[in-house]
């Protein structure tokens, strides 16, 4: 029996949205996976997750990033997990970025770690590929996830799907 189960999916309609939310997440899976196909309305290409509405500076991140020319890395703390990448408004039209987030043991009593990979393709010299490891410094089970862009909106036809994985 396949045990990677789609829980919810959202496709953004006309006008775009400032965030995508999954609420009332069942507590019956082992891990969660999110796949994104998104594009930004603003000149910002980052995408991240916020858990249980926590907008405090409780998310640590570390990443390695390639832009087509150089590889860089960094660490820090912010108000959401980093990890996703999406084309900015100036990138090639009709191009959407791809990202995945793997959240193991989301109902556990430990801090929650997130492994994410994201890319933003562009028919130009610069495009981004990023690997990120994040940590939400909170022991609460995750019952809601809000996906947010660095600034602006997710444009129409952006989509997000939340999956649950069972290990039994």
């Amino acid at each position, binding site marked *: 029996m396949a045990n990677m189960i789609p829980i919810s999916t959202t496709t953004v309609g006309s006008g775009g949205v400032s965030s995508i939310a999954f609420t009332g997440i069942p507590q019956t899976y082992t891990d969660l996976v999110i796949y994104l196909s998104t594009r930004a309305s603003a000149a910002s290409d980052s995408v991240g997750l916020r858990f249980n509405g926590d907008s405090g500076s409780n998310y*640590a991140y570390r990443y390695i990033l390639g832009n087509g020319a150089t590889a860089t890395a960094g660490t820090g703390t912010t108000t959401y997990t980093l990890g996703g990448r999406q084309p900015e408004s100036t990138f090639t039209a009709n191009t959407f970025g791809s990202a995945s987030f793997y959240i193991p043991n989301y109902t556990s009593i430990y801090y929650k770690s997130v492994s994410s990979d994201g890319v933003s393709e562009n028919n130009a010299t610069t495009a981004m590929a990023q690997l990120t490891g994040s940590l939400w410094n909170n022991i609460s089970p995750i019952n809601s996830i809000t996906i947010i862009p660095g600034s602006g909106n997710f444009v129409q036809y952006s989509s997000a799907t939340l999956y649950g994985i069972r290990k039994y």
Partner: protein
Amino acid sequence: MPLPSTMTPIATNTLTSNLASGVITFSNIPQTYTDLVIVAVGQGYTSSSYGNLQVQFNGDTGTNYSSTELKEFAGTASSSRRTTQSYLFATSFLDAGSASLLVGTSIINVFNYANTTTFKSTLSRGNLPGFKTELNVGLWRSTAAITSLTLTANDTPINAGASFTLYGIKAA
């Protein structure tokens, strides 16, 4: 990393007590899937930074493994190679001590594991909160179908609560 919707759990091992040996074995792996995925979540007992999570296939202890690492560590990007190894370096494995709330995650993909024609390749993603994030590509130079695999954490014991799950993926 992307995981297809045909992901099926084959076996899981959740530690109810500290594992002194640091060794987890999955044997009699069905040959009916296309790829394998291993998800390891947990921590080592020691309070140092991290150790290695290593893989051997079919009990092969010969120097038939190699890997390439791309990582962020201490805010710096770097890459390194391991050749003629007696194990496959999958990812680092967090050593968080006995009381920490931190856990590390390793996701190991093993491609086309049942074929008897080609060497076997892997793609592994490690997330160690507070220490590093990494991507590793590995090779086992054997054409044998993979029927068993052993995970070994070289810093022991592995703390109770850690879980190791083997999934099979079928192509459409």
